[in-house]
């Protein structure tokens, strides 16, 4: 039903067949964040954990100034450099999570879409079970039970992306599994493994790749939410944790809003860029929205 309604593109909206200025702006922002995340310790940033107490200014938190662009928190730590270091965990977790989700979910989805039968039934049931938990509830539940470090938090968020990625990969594979070129390959005696890798995967990979960016945005937000509630990586600085620190006490939020608001800005711009770039890629590759 919705299939026909979404795919029929309205004529008066011309979808430009180029990525556009906005797309590259977003790519530059994400690239910049990734650069900062990787090289934070080499870049001339202030220490994120040092206390910059200044007796002339009285008691911290200090408002944004030339020496502290984003101000300081109530321990006189530099919010700018903390926001930069925050990109590290947020982006690493987002990237690792979506990579894990694509590897596991993508493989499962392609295999169940190709072989069908009982493999398909089992993995489809697994996907529905995973989707029956509201994702934040499942993420909180799992992270609360494990030792929270960079890898485990990433894997939990990766687990959450298995079901949506897997269903998408399965749907995309089903579209191709009975097409003529696949039958032809089978006729000339290609093995299943060869067909999946050489025939199916290249066709499925294109629509999936544009969704990797959208998925990474979701993972970054999810990590932020976990950190905000206190369920993300135990040691280290994350955007969600910084926002939580700046807004937990109403007094801090009221008197020193910059502590929470600059990390919010960083997170917002990053998620916006990932979303926008992903959406642009999707229209560029003309992926049907209903397969989402």
């Amino acid at each position, binding site marked *: 039903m919705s299939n026909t309604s979404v795919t029929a593109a309205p004529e008066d909206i011309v979808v430009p067949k180029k990525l556009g200025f906005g797309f590259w702006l977003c790519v530059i922002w994400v690239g910049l964040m990734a650069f900062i995340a990787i090289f934070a310790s080499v870049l001339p940033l202030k220490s994120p954990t040092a206390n910059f107490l200044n007796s002339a200014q009285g008691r911290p938190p200090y408002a944004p100034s030339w020496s502290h662009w984003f101000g300081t928190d109530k321990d006189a730590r530099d919010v700018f450099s903390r926001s930069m270091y925050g990109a590290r965990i947020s982006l690493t977790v987002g990237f690792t999570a979506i990579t894990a989700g694509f590897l596991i979910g993508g493989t499962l989805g392609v295999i169940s879409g190709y072989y069908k039968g009982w493999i398909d039934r089992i993995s489809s049931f697994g996907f529905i079970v995973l989707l029956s938990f*509201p994702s934040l509830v499942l993420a909180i539940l799992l992270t609360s*039970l494990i030792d929270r470090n960079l890898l485990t938090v990433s894997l939990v968020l990766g687990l959450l992306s298995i079901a949506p990625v897997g269903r998408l990969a399965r749907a995309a594979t089903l579209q191709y599994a009975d097409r003529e070129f696949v039958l032809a390959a089978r006729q000339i005696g290609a093995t299943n493994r060869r067909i999946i890798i050489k025939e199916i995967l290249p066709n499925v990979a294109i629509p999936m790749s544009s969704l990797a960016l959208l998925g990474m945005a979701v993972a970054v937000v999810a990590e932020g939410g976990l950190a905000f509630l206190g369920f993300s990586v135990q040691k280290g600085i994350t955007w969600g944790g910084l926002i939580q620190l700046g807004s937990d006490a109403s007094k801090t939020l009221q008197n020193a809003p910059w502590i929470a608001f600059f990390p919010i800005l960083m997170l917002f711009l990053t998620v916006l860029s990932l979303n926008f770039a992903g959406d642009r890629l999707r229209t560029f590759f003309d992926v049907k929205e209903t397969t989402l």
Partner: protein
Amino acid sequence: MRYYVQRVALAILLLLAVSMLTFGALNILGDPLFNILGPVAGDVNNPDSIKMIALAKKEFSLDRSLPVRYFIWLSDFVRGDFGVTFSSTGQPPVSGVISERLPRTISLVFLAQMFAVLVSIPWAIIAAARAGKISDRISTINAFFLVAMPNFAIAVILKFVFSLKLGWTPITYMADDPLRSRLFQLLLPALTIGLPVAAVYQRLLRTDLITTLQQDFILLARTKGLSKTRILFVHALRPSLFSFITVVGLNTGALIGGSIVAETVFRIPGIGSTLVESIFRNDFPVVLAIVMIVASAFVVINLLVDFAYTLIDPRVRR
């Protein structure tokens, strides 16, 4: 008929799987004893504490094997007895905690959905009527911004602007206040949940509306000389609502999960904030009950949406 039976059976199977996974994970990965007894639980060399551990194990039936405990829990759960909280006294019962707090979460989610629907429909209609024009572009960008804003960030911003700077809404939720002021206190959390959702609904409905507006019967209505408002609200809206209603329905379960953040920021004692507190206190029966309630809501709403489909389009039954 066969279709309905199959769907219900699948739903029950799903909930069983969810409960087994949750029950297993909580019991294998966590240590319920420590929470009941405190440090005594680790003190295995002292004869007194061994006695206490044995007593507590018996009381909370932790001395049985895992499958047996699961079946005890399951048979109690389906009869509405959610067990006892893991504390030294076992009071209050989990059912009491839930029945006290669930209504708050439900009213919060209801308010948020109402807000999102009431905002997104006119927003989508206005955008679709001017599709491709500058005002539509601006509204699309706005929707994009809203979707990119994580709900905890929205919560912090709303709290800062409306509670702290303008002082329009109270900071905390008082359970004893009269209904009207409690509803007023739910306003900001409902906005927190509802705003990004409204943007999602708007984008969906706008696309469907634009497609409907290309159809012949709209052209006919226009040549009949009907006003643009009448065409949009009466003729175009109804056939465009199909996937909108589906998504609104399916989203309700997810919003219960989304209320975790809103309840935590605005300090509302609903099941979302209770889930977080209980996890920090290792209070497994409460966690299990909340996860099951949220998952059940999710599965049941899915089922209802599927059944609603069969009423609209009998081909779905196959």
